[in-house]
């Protein structure tokens, strides 16, 4: 219940002469309410942004408060025990036949002679590593490598990026595919030895695209997988290592400097973060089985010869494998951050374009060529404008101007609501502008395009979602302001929310009818 003094004041307010009677005077008054009170040292844009952010911050602060209250009132949801883990999938070994077992025993016996802790797995690893090295040497022959060395090139780089080819009995490529591999390798070796960047460019593009297509998972680094794929993993790791050498090489560096920035960022994130743990997992897992990956042979240095030293290497390998999921996550985060930055770089220009379009719209409306525009002119909107923003302010203004008697009765509160409504619409314009800009940038990328396009499109989509989330609270708020104005000026029923809003804005509980459900 309101006190007697307050009731008297309300009655006085209702009885006081209507100060604003002429529509023209009222329009001037409403126009004055549209003005932003810009504090010294602040621009209009900053003031508008601060107004909008204050509303968003209020929503965030209340939600945080509610969450804190909930945590005091309720226990934490207790379902932690049911959380599914993410077990590393390992390929189950196939059942072995008697013949296969005998073969494995034979291989294990041979392997043990080379290194006391080696077994049939070690044998297969060495076979795999040697076969790929031999294949590469089919293209990167000692003569070719000597040519590279004489030209000041890095023979490891030259060899690692060769595919190699399979030969027939006469030493020629086995088929057309193998011939293509040979020709491609020879072209690469020639171009590299000649320091010819133009000829190297298609090869460099191929290497970059290949590395970007790599997907490193924990299960491919387990001993069971390396038994079959050690050479493939080693080749991937070598290429990831030596692409960095190519980036540093003064001859090939310009290629990388001119590479699509997102592609370069993805390449660097992947190689910087993954090469180490992946290489370490490969080397230690093979070492735990008496295999020296770099030599493509059994470890003959005496480093790993006892079960204890093998266990130590295995522990290292296990901890490296356990890191892989986390590293993939870090790469994703780094790629997202790079994409975010590239999207943000484009935004100022797009904002400028949309602002210019909005300025045209505003200018057209202010010219008042049509009846609709005359109604909407003078809305005093300073930010990015849409038809909706103009209509909303014009509707509110028209409502006030067509109910001058009721306005006189509630002038103080109507002024306050109109001012809030106007400033909210104006502040909303900045966020609407952002959503349009992010949408525009997102639409520039093909959803079914390359990995890089997809990454950039996702980044723009994330930013669009965030901007849209900021926009969401405004609609119900503006609806409440309009409903409050309609109630005060036209009368009618009063909902709970509008009633509470009016109380929040200074009306007395006792002056309002009960809310209708």
């Amino acid at each position: 219940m309101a006190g007697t003094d307050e009731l008297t004041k309300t009655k006085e307010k209702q009885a006081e002469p209507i100060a604003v009677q002429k529509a023209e005077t009222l329009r001037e008054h409403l126009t004055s309410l549209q003005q932003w009170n810009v504090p010294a040292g602040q621009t209009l844009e900053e003031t508008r942004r601060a107004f909008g952010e204050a509303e968003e911050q209020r929503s965030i602060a209340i939600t945080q408060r509610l969450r804190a209250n909930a945590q005091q009132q309720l226990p934490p949801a207790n379902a932690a025990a049911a959380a599914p883990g993410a077990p590393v999938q390992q390929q189950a070994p196939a059942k072995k036949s008697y013949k296969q077992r005998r073969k494995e025993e034979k291989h294990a016996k041979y392997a043990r002679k080379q290194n006391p802790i080696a077994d049939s797995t070690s044998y297969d690893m060495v076979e795999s590593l040697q076969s790929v090295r031999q294949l590469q040497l089919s293209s990167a022959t000692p003569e070719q490598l000597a040519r590279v060395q004489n030209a000041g090139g890095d023979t490891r780089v030259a060899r690692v990026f060769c595919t190699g080819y399979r030969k027939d009995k006469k030493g020629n490529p086995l088929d057309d595919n193998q011939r293509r591999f040979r020709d491609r390798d020879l072209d690469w070796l020639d171009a590299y030895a000649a320091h010819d960047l133009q000829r190297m460019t298609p090869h460099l593009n191929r290497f970059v695209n290949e590395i970007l297509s790599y997907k490193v998972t924990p299960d491919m680094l387990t001993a069971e997988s390396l038994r079959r794929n050690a050479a493939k993993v080693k080749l991937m790791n070598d290429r990831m290592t030596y692409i960095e050498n190519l980036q540093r090489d003064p001859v090939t560096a310009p290629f990388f400097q001119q590479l699509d920035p997102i592609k370069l960022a993805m390449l660097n994130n992947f190689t910087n973060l993954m090469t180490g743990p992946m290489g370490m997992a490969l080397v230690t897992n093979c070492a735990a089985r008496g295999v020296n990956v770099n030599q493509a042979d059994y470890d003959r240095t005496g480093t790993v010869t006892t079960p204890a030293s093998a266990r130590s290497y295995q522990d290292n390998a296990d901890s490296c494998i356990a890191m892989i999921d986390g590293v993939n996550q870090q790469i994703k985060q780094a790629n997202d951050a790079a994409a975010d930055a590239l999207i943000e770089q484009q935004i100022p220009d797009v904002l400028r374009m949309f602002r210019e379009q909005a300025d045209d719209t505003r200018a057209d409306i202010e010219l008042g060529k049509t009846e609709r525009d005359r109604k909407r002119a003078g809305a005093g909107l300073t930010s990015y404008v849409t038809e909706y923003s103009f209509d909303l302010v014009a509707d509110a203004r028209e409502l006030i101007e067509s109910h001058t008697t009721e306005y006189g009765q509630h002038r103080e509160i109507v002024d306050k609501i109109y001012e809030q409504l106007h400033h909210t619409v104006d502040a909303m314009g900045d966020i609407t502008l952002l959503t349009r800009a992010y949408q525009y940038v997102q639409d520039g990328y093909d959803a079914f395009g390359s990995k890089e396009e997809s990454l950039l499109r996702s980044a723009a989509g994330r930013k669009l979602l965030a901007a849209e989330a900021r926009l969401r609270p405004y609609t119900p708020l503006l609806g409440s302001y309009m409903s409050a104005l309609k109630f005060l000026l036209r009368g009618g029923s009063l909902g709970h929310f509008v009633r509470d809003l009016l109380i929040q804005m200074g009306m007395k509980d006792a002056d309002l009818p009960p809310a209708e459900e």
Partner: protein
Amino acid sequence: MEIGVLTREVLPVFSTLLLPEAAAQLEADEPPLALGLTEDNLACGALAGRMEGDLFAVTSLFVAPDYRRRGGGTMLLRALADVLRADGGVFGVSIAFNCTLPEHETLCAFLAARGFAEQDDHGENIYLTTVGEALASPFFASRSAGGAVRRFSELSDAALRAAERDALRAGAPLPETPLVSESIDRELSAALVENGGVKALAVFDRSCGCLTLACAWSGTAGPAALPQLLRASAARLAEAHAADEPFAVQAVTQEAARLVQALLPGAKPISRYYIASVQSLPESEKEDDVHGGD
């Protein structure tokens, strides 16, 4: 059944029970308030939401099918209401969703029984029908297109951007999605072009995942242009789309709503927006409907 507060730590268990956006906010430690429903250490329901303006907007509410009709949904709402009542600074709860599945109908009944009132949108809604039903309307009995009607696919991006700018200036209720966006169906969307300028538009959009007539604007071409455009689109709709494909029409003004209701009497409005005051939500003391419809 028990209610608890969801934190990031237990999100892996509950994430399937939350809409992706709510789960992502919780994952990012943004500020949704999220509650979980459990039984025998098994997650079986969740509610999430946050303040939007002056209302607490429920952004996700779900109870697993096997655990429904046992009061779990009411428990979630009751726990939320307790938190809001204790706070005292929030006076309403809103929930918005599209009603496209039978379980959404159940949700409507559930909300109505627990103090929520559906907000009247005066017909400004999304209307859902099928391509077959739409084409069966007498309005589309004739599907001939006039010579000046052009598909968007026949117009350049620059022409579409110019058309968008002109249409916005002329007050066209264009969708938020730009006309050059890939979610716009350029084969179905059509424009009436005269002297190089776009005079009227019919825009078909797929941004919400469903084929939607997002805007039909007769512009400066006069009301007769609209039937001409829509019938041209209908001809292509009949050629390239299955009769049972869902088809939505968005009515953004009351005039458009009346038009949709007249032309497509079988189309159902699907957007729902419910609001309840905190006071009208279920209270803890009441053991009202433990076996209610949730």
